[in-house]
């Protein structure tokens, strides 16, 4: 990270929301309905607490190295070799998340909007502008994200709320008929939907103007994201019911296909939702690709991020095209989810323990 680059906690909140809230809205309801049925909204709520825990661990760890990014302090903690290995793990995780999100995104666009356009064309057109956006570092990325976020999310919120017009409240019952176990089992599936903040904080902490405010702004970001996911889960469940939700490939779009406001200019909601959603996903992609490139930049101590973005994008496009079908995407998605959980709930706490132990030892010496 360029040491002169400074961002405010509010900008951190904006980045976190934009990077986190992307394609998961399409598939999260299906995964959760399979596990938790009518109570699928509960793991969404509980998942937010788990990510908050991981965020606090990550924040505490970053606060121990206020002048370093996570790429640097991984090396300080584990030595050059161990730190590099950990950075490669982090980079692989971020690149896979990017590729997976992008694949789900373009698959949905292909099914519902551009059925004749080849997948690679849609993917390329969505990723190539990122080279331009990322060429001058974090600030232009941030400006673009800030520019998109307000109009896109306001319209998106207005549209998703219209979904309540078709909700059937009986679809929310019975409550906890199978006990709490299915709800708890559903929590891990929400990880990828919330993942982002725990990765960003280590990377951005040294650039934040008021680090003490991060707890508040991080919590606000998680609450906003959880609120949006909760709304979408409740509306999808309320429109389709648990059994339908679990059988439909992209239940969120199908739910909004059921919302029609006849004799108005709106008529059907799904088309509008898709258009706004493209802006939201593009916003998320910029963030993921930029931060993946920035990790490489720091790992190899390269001066500019632009050539790395240019080199990374063909790799991401290749990874996007790799899964042959939706079953493969689902399998890959489960693996990446697991890798994310390992990072957020195992590696980060271990790193924090190690950092605290090292600090204590240094103090004693």
């Amino acid at each position, binding site marked *: 990270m360029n040491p002169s680059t400074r961002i405010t906690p509010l900008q951190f909140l904006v980045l976190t929301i934009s990077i986190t809230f992307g394609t998961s809205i399409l598939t999260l309801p299906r995964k959760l309905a399979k596990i938790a049925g009518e109570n699928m909204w509960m793991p969404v709520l509980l998942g937010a607490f788990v990510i908050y825990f991981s965020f606090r661990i990550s924040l505490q760890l970053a606060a121990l190295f206020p002048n370093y990014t996570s790429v640097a302090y991984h090396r300080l903690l584990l030595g050059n070799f161990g730190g590099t290995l950990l950075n490669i793990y982090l980079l692989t995780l971020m690149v896979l998340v990017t590729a997976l999100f992008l694949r789900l995104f373009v698959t949905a666009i292909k099914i519902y909007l551009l059925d*004749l356009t080849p997948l690679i*064309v849609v993917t390329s057109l969505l990723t190539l502008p990122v080279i331009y956006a990322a060429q001058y570092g974090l600030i232009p990325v941030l400006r673009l994200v800030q520019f998109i976020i307000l109009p896109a999310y306001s319209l998106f919120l207005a549209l998703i709320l219209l979904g309540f017009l078709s909700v059937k409240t*009986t679809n929310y019952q019975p409550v906890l*008929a199978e006990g709490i176990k299915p709800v708890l089992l559903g929590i891990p599936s929400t990880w990828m939907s919330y993942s982002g903040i725990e990765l960003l904080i280590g990377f951005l902490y040294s650039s934040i103007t008021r680090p003490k405010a991060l707890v508040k702004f991080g919590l606000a970001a998680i609450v906003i994201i959880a609120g949006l996911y909760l709304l979408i889960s409740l509306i999808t469940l309320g429109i*389709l019911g648990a*059994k*339908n939700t679990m059988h439909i490939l992209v239940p969120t779009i199908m739910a909004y296909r*059921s919302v029609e406001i006849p004799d108005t200019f709106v008529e059907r909601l799904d088309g509008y939702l898709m258009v706004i959603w493209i802006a939201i996903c593009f916003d998320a992609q910029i963030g993921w690709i930029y931060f993946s490139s920035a990790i490489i930049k720091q790992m190899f101590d390269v001066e500019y991020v632009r050539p790395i973005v240019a080199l990374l994008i063909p790799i991401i496009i290749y990874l996007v095209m790799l899964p042959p079908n939706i079953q493969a995407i689902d399998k890959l998605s489960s693996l990446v989810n697991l890798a994310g959980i390992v990072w957020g709930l195992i590696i980060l706490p271990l790193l924090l323990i190690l950092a605290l132990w090292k600090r204590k030892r240094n103090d004693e010496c």
Partner: protein
Amino acid sequence: MLKNFAGILLLVLTLFITGCWDRREIENRGYVLGVGIDHVESTEPKGQYDLDKAAQAAGRRKYKITFELPKFRKQEASKELSSGQSHLIWSAEGESLFAATRAVSAKVYFAPFFEDIQIIVFSEQVGKEGIRDILDFFQRDAEMRRRVKLLVTPGRAEEVLSAKLQVEEVNSMFIAKTMNSVSKYPHFSSETELGQVASFLRNHQSFTLPLVVVENKEVRLTKAAVFNNQGKMIGKLNELEVMGGKILRKNLQKGIVTVPNPANPSKLAVFEILEHSIKVDSLLVDNQINFVVKAVFIGTIAENMEPKQSAIDSSFLKKLEQELVDYISAIIRSGYRKQQLLHADVSELNSLVYRQHPHYWKQIKDRWDEEIFPTVPLEVDIKVNIARPVLMD
């Protein structure tokens, strides 16, 4: 210089890459507004070239699928030809509906496009054989509307679409719009949408579809075709049984109830339901389930055909309210009894049991329609409140 050139090149590129692959001219689209599905009348080739037959590597010549498309005319021509048909009818035959749909593309240059589809009509014959397999095509197609309305006709579905009606509107549009009258005339089934029906089939839930009949240049929506949890049509509910079923399902909007006038039984009194409060509960006692329906109907006297009788006389109103209570209770009971006889819980009472007694439901869910539901007693407690008995003028 190079930067400027690259910038201009990128701008020019955007002109060529915006949706090229998905470009379809509006005049090359066949806007399907209605689909009719019948069994073929004969499997023998029709005519020298047998134009309707779909190419299928496997499968029989089983269904005839008919599409109704709007007929677009130039504005000047439409003034002159205002009495002409406003629709085009195309059809093909095969077992696979998708193959048959593609076969239509060999007859017309505008490929069938389903984003604006309004209705799908099945013949009763097709309904009796089952619609579960047929609906797969409609659920799978990404163009299809989830809210497209499904109907059953006692005759041939193609005739519903091709009939010449009094109105100069595409039949499918006209029928779809007429279905909105269900709020005023609740005597035909209102559970009709593809998304709903797909959900019923997935949940092994019985359901009803409205019947549509065409006669003397008129179309009418009536009654309900009852489908069991396998998606096979097994009977019909008459118009009053439909209303009773709707009360049990709590999806009655408005309606009228006609009863003998208490002041003179040879004349009529008509009650218009303006609002209501319906509560349906399932009670589980000693592992035995029973249903209780409690409802209050508030409305007005829409017609009092005994002019000598003052409509604000309280004893008359009391008698009329009692008459209405008896009558509405009878409608509910007859609708419920018919469903029990058909072993088809179309009022979704099974969902009520699942929500209120999930553990009991687990034990009996596989035996519900055939064994349990036909024996469950129903308790009816109705109240009627004539809130506006006076004449307006």
